[in-house]
């Protein structure tokens, strides 16, 4: 028991652990900040899991052929956006059920990514040698004693993810566009009446979620590592969705959720590394169990709008 405690103490006192928390929070936070707008516009978007996976695969392939991880990240964003266009066409224009469509898209992404990857790199799925995204050491700040290594010696996408929180917050609550998005999600009919194009706003917010999710996927495959594995997102999209719900659809709340799950992920990695007599599968379960507990205890009966997750049909007004 004392041994276990000292091991946990060791984990929690090492600066590397906190650097890992930030690194593992990043993909979840990025995705959450990208899709919080379409969530606010009334789309229940769990297809971000599939967008991320598509981004992760494309990043590796583009980096392999063009040699630049930056172009890889760009390609990831575009590929994920193509998938998000498909999602938007079904959900917004045709008006299909958000959840079933998203699940179908995630299956599509799982199949398509492994199909393309196996086609390009052979059935063994051996990962090619590629260079990942660089690490930016911020001058001066990076030289701070302990904090320097934790906060300012990270991948540029880590900085971007955390900077995106105040930006998203400002955009959501201080700009006209943010107001329009919130109006569309809250009461689409009223928003339509005052002249907002519900379909267009929802369509564009989904595209944004696709773009950003692609970038987050790229971070998984060429930021944290330089490999792609089939299904490597392993539910991070769902976890990001939960972070949004946990944060009651506010960017700052979603940040809290994402950090909690990043913490769980980092903890899980450390437990695996130290052994500690726990089978590694149980360590791997920690983030999922954290997420489920977050849903159970923190969320309750929360749904911020009756229109949330419902397809919007303008015609209802004219048919009666």
């Amino acid at each position, binding site marked *: 028991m004392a041994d276990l405690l000292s091991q946990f103490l060791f984990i929690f006192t090492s600066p590397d652990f906190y650097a890992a928390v930030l690194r593992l929070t990043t993909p979840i936070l990025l995705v959450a900040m990208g899709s919080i707008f379409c969530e606010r516009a009334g789309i229940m978007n769990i297809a971000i899991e599939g967008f991320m996976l598509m981004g992760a695969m494309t990043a590796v392939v583009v980096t392999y052929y063009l040699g630049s991880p930056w172009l890889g990240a760009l390609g990831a964003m575009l590929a994920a956006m193509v998938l998000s266009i498909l999602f938007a066409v079904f959900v917004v224009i045709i008006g299909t059920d958000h959840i079933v469509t998203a699940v179908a898209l995630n299956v599509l992404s799982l199949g398509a990514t*492994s199909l393309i990857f196996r086609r390009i790199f052979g059935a063994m799925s051996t990962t090619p040698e590629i260079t990942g995204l660089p690490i930016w050491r911020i001058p001066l700040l990076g030289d701070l004693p302990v904090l320097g290594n934790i906060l300012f010696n990270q991948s540029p996408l880590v900085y971007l993810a955390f900077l995106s929180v105040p930006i998203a917050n400002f955009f959501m609550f201080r700009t006209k566009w943010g107001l329009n998005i919130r109006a569309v999600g809250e009461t689409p009919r009223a928003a339509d009446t005052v002249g907002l194009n519900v379909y267009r706003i929802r369509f564009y917010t989904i595209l944004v979620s696709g773009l950003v999710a692609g970038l987050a996927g790229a971070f998984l495959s060429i930021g944290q590592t330089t490999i792609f594995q089939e299904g490597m997102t392993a*539910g991070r999209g769902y976890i990001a969705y939960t972070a949004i719900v946990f944060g009651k659809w506010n960017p700052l709340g979603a940040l809290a959720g994402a950090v909690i799950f990043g913490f769980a992920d980092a903890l899980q990695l450390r437990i695996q590394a130290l052994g500690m007599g726990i089978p590694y599968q149980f360590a791997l379960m920690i983030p999922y169990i954290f997420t489920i507990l977050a849903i159970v205890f923190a969320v309750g009966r929360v749904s911020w709008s009756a229109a949330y997750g419902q397809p919007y049909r303008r015609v209802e007004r004219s048919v009666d």
Partner: protein
Amino acid sequence: MKTKFKLLTRPWLEGLQKAGLSSWKRLAPPFIAIAAALIVCGVLMLFMNFNPLLAYQALFESAIGNKSAIGTTIIKSLPLLITGLAVTIAYRTEIFNIGVEGQILVGGIFAIWVGTKVSGLPSFIHIPLCMIAGMAGGMAYALLPAWLKAKRGINEVIVTLLLNYVAALLLSWAVRGPLREPGQLYAKTAEIAETARLPILVPEMRLHPGIFIALILITLGYFFLWHTVPGFNIRFVGANQRAAEAAGINVPKTMMTSFLISGSLAGLAGTLHIIGTEYRMLESFLSGFGYDAIAAALVGQLHPLGVLLGGFFFGALRSGSNGMQISLGIPSTLIYVIQALIILFVLASYHIRFGWRWWKREKQRDVFKQEIQSRN
């Protein structure tokens, strides 16, 4: 007004609430969706430099080309028939049980445990015991999301999706840890005792009596949904939750019931696959079959008899994709693409059909308007 609102927000579920597969209009969409998905997938294959015609030929031949192929198809369809029914029953209450994937695994782990650790029982006790254990496992795994959904109104989709990952890890642990067959290089569980195995009826097709259990369950599922009171409640809650509440139906209880039935059926599907075909579990046990089940249920229009067709279709796709991979080197993950496209097209087909109907009505209104104007 109320009904029209409902019709337009969830037309496809609304359209499915009626029993019976009567008109061709109801039968056509799945077939159109399947055809469209195969065509789109063929185009994708062309882009990837595969020959789609050869691919589909290989798929077809290794799915129903000869006796053993048909046997494999039936064996692969069997879990899908039962899990498809599981998805259907849950969906009738507007519960989207994506957790089937995990419930299969946990049911399977329970069944393996009873099958390997318990010995010395006669077959007629051991086999039912395995099946009960499997059903209990599946039901237990559905308990948390069911309770959260029914009592706290928490969306079951996210919880079950996350639980699927946990179940896969549980299986990985069981296969490598407590249930592992000692002295084996490759991690797998020991085989279940002879007494726990179902007899093989047709050796060259590896058929076992599980298929009859599946067919009986599908028939029972139909009677349950349309000819019993709990079944009626389930459909009522699914059709209109508020009306069901007003009519005095215990909505949380009905939700729990349908979710737990769904979970136990999923567990049973895993169990039958073990005691009838595989006799052991690997880490890859029935992986992806939960998503197949959703596709089968949706193609089957959320009707037990439709599930029968949908289950066999996706079972054939599963067994055919293996042959395609072996003979042409096309990765079997292609079927995920086909499957996803089918789901998308099935969803879209209802909307497009209802959209067409609305458009015709709009046209009629225009005609009326013109008439009125011309009279004035």
